[in-house]
């Protein structure tokens, strides 16, 4: 572990690394694509939190969204898997090396259409992974067909109207016991950065469903996943702040206005009350809220649900602290005596 250097110039983070260390290759997405916005917020969050790049492992499926891991934290290993099956690959990698900080990026097609099965089982296992859905309601990379998160009545550019109800990945996540569930909007960096930081600090799966308009295929009138629609219909649950474990919390706010949520590594998420009181620790309340918002066509954003106590899959498996990947032979090959004992058993 690199230790924190307190005497750094202001342009570096606590590890002494400049923001550029958290950038990747230039994006090849369409100019204005929501996904590029999310990439920037990921860069910012990891920079500000101060995660060592080599400890990060990036995963994705296939799609415009799934290309983005090449565009952030270039000095970390990345894996662009096959369409819809990123969860399995990420699961395997996180089991092989539990010390990695896993970030998965996926699209709504990648997650909710072809990938919904693996997504559900990832959530059920509570694999330690930040899972970001860059949700634009269409298949960008194959030129604009509806995905399973397209809203009823939303229109394709060619006039085709979607008749099938959308899958709400946050609802699924909450129902399946995911312990960190947030919804956000690519056009709202102020909210997205602390949510990603919280996800870094979280243990278990952290799901971020981020509305991320496709400017080429789904940003027109009639789309409910356009920048315009999202901006007009965004309803922030709370104002979000993040205080990392290495910073002092300062209680400079009036009683009741702010809710502090302590995360697993000792960091805090600070939810500042807006119009309503919202406690992200109640499943039924969270579900009710989302349902109502969906009915009203509101884009409700913020930390929807959080459960600090949930065990993750590493706990379930009672795994060693060291990465399995690099255990020495002495730890992974039982002794001669063991084999003799086994041979005896079968003789």
């Amino acid at each position, binding site marked *: 572990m690199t230790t924190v250097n307190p005497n750094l110039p202001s342009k570096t983070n606590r590890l002494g690394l400049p923001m550029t260390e958290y950038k990747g290759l230039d994006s090849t997405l369409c100019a204005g694509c929501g996904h590029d916005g999310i990439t920037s917020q990921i860069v910012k969050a990891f920079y500000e939190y101060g995660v060592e790049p080599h400890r990060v492992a990036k995963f994705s499926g296939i799609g415009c969204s799934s290309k983005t891991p090449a565009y952030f934290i270039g000095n970390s290993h990345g894996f662009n898997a096959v369409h819809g099956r990123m969860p399995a690959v990420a699961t*395997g990698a996180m089991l*092989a090396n539990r010390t990695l900080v896993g970030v998965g990026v996926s699209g709504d097609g990648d997650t909710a259409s072809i990938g919904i099965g693996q997504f559900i089982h990832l959530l059920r296992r509570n694999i330690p992974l930040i899972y970001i859905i860059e949700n634009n309601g269409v298949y960008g990379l194959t030129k604009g067909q509806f995905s399973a998160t397209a809203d009823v009545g939303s229109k394709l550019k060619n006039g085709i109207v979607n008749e099938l109800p959308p899958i709400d990945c946050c609802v699924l996540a909450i129902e399946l016991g995911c312990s960190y569930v947030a919804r956000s909007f690519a056009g709202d960096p102020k909210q997205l950065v602390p949510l990603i930081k919280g996800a870094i600090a979280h243990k278990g799966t952290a799901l971020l469903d981020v509305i991320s308009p496709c400017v080429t295929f789904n940003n027109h009138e009639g789309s409910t996943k356009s920048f315009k629609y999202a901006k007009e219909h965004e309803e922030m649950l709370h104002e979000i702040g993040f205080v990392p474990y290495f910073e002092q919390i300062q209680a400079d706010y009036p009683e009741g206005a702010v809710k502090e949520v302590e995360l697993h590594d000792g960091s805090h998420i600070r939810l500042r009350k807006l119009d309503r009181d919202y406690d992200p620790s109640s499943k039924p309340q969270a579900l009710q809220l989302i349902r109502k918002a969906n009915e009203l066509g509101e884009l409700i954003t913020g930390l929807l649900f959080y459960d600090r106590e949930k065990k993750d899959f590493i706990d379930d498996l009672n795994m060693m602290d060291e990465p399995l990947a690099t255990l020495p032979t002495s730890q992974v090959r039982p002794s001669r005596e063991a*084999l003799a004992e086994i041979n005896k058993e079968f003789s």
Partner: protein
Amino acid sequence: MSNGTQTALAGVTQEQGVPEEIVNDFSIQVATVNGSGSQSANSVLMRSIFLMGVPVSGKNIFPSNIAGLPTWYTIRANQHGYVARRREVDLCIAMNPETARDDVRNVRPGGVAIYEEALNLGTLREDITLYPVPFAKLATQSSPEPKLRKLLANMIYVGVVAELLGIGRDEVVAAIKTQFKSKAKAVELNVMAVDLGIDYVRARLMKRDPFRVVRMGLTAGKIIIDGNSAAALGAMFAGCTVVTWYPITPSSSLCETMIEYFSRYRIDPETGKATFAIVQAEDELAALGMVIGAGWAGARAMTATSGPGISLMGEFAGLAYFTEIPAVVWDIERIGPSTGLPTRTSQGDVLSAFYLSHGDTKHIVLFPSSVEECFEFAGTAFDLAERFQTIVFVLSDLDLGMNNWMAHPFQYPNKPLDRGKVLTRDDLERLGQFERYRDVDGDGIPYRTLPGTQHPLAAYFTRGSGHNEKAGYSERPEDYKNLMDRLLRKMDTARSYVPQPIVDINPNAKIGLIAFGTTDWAVVETRDQLKEEGIESSYLRIRALPFTPGLLEFVERHDRVYVIEQNRDGQMGDLIKLKVGRQCDRIQKVLHYTGHPIDARTITEAVTTAEDQMKEGK
């Protein structure tokens, strides 16, 4: 029925009074109902013969359901060590009323049938020895509990057979102790049931058949185990750290055995924590996906499945090939296509495993034929997967995987794990450069780093789309061609790393035999049968794909080469034909596809018929 066998048994009929003895050479078929607990009785019977020092094998022919349907267990004892299936049934134990008549009809003339007295089969056959036994009645004496009684009824037949064949009670008791491990109560009850059988024979039956077991010394020091357990243990000693699986017959027991033994031997004594992760995946796509993720991150990861699972793994297999990630997949073959016969054996996945996935994808495939090789190849597969950074398939089958086989005790691995070309932080520091997909050594194998390596040069991006030597995204024709050509080169390098074939050249032989996997056991016997008929043969047992150069030489050396395999399409035969080019017309296919393991007589007949036609100039 075979001529050879008929000759050997000539004179064995009841009219001629007490027949000539047939010692340590017979097959027993126990016909029961599945879920009735006959499995342990069968194992005890087999092990008793084994403890008599006589080579033996046991094969279970069971239905694809849980309880209540006919099941057959075949034990073959043979003083020469032949343990392949035999077509003929010498002794039948007909415990299942539903199939009893057919079972008894199926016994070869001169054989024996033991059956429940109440079934009244006394007039069914005149050419075999019939021993009615009142199993049900005897069972009522064994226990007051009806459920237990049912279980024990099976053990009674063990006593009957043991006594009739001359298997020592001591051996039976020892076998029972092994079977029920330390459970004293169970041992006691079962021994009691066996004694009921023994006593009944002594009191009521007169030995009228020729079959006998006589002590030999051929099994001393050996073990009995199934191929799936052997593979599980082999993987454990090969340092496997991540196992993913989705249950499917006949592979499930491989992973279930892993769970059992890893929990015993792979918990760190200091921390009490596991040095492994075993995950029941949601399906086979996910199982292989997890293996690939784990292999990418540096673990020795594997999964086990059967045909339908292989068909589901196509996309991920191509990803592993193209991104060069180690992965090991055991395919315990069963009969396909589709769901097929889930409880029947086959070698039908050769082509699908070798070519698995679209585009120009090809894989390393290993073919163990014994439990020893299951143990050994479990390690070999990891070594190859990591050395060649690719997916390796190990093709076992139901016969090998789920049946009990005699074997030498497993050898402690004497080689260190081959973790392949992995660059550590120090390596990177020393080298000052790293390109993920460059052929530095000219062998087609690039270097890799593991995620988490703390060095600015370490990181690279893995993708199933086109990439250049630096792992950058590329659609350039030259980059694509370079990559594809290197992958071919890598596969060529693998030819000398994979397990080489086992070749036995008979200098007098005009014909050669080629087989792989479990077909080996029948071929070994076939060669002796052919010899008896005056046909000398050489033998090459394939143990891996891609092929090694020796194959062509072997084919060229013989006028005719019979490729024997257990599938309809002669899949390996086709690959061999492709490999040997114009010599392909020497290749003849001997195919067996019924779901039952292949037997020597079938092969011998096919070969002699073909050879006869040859002579006749047809």
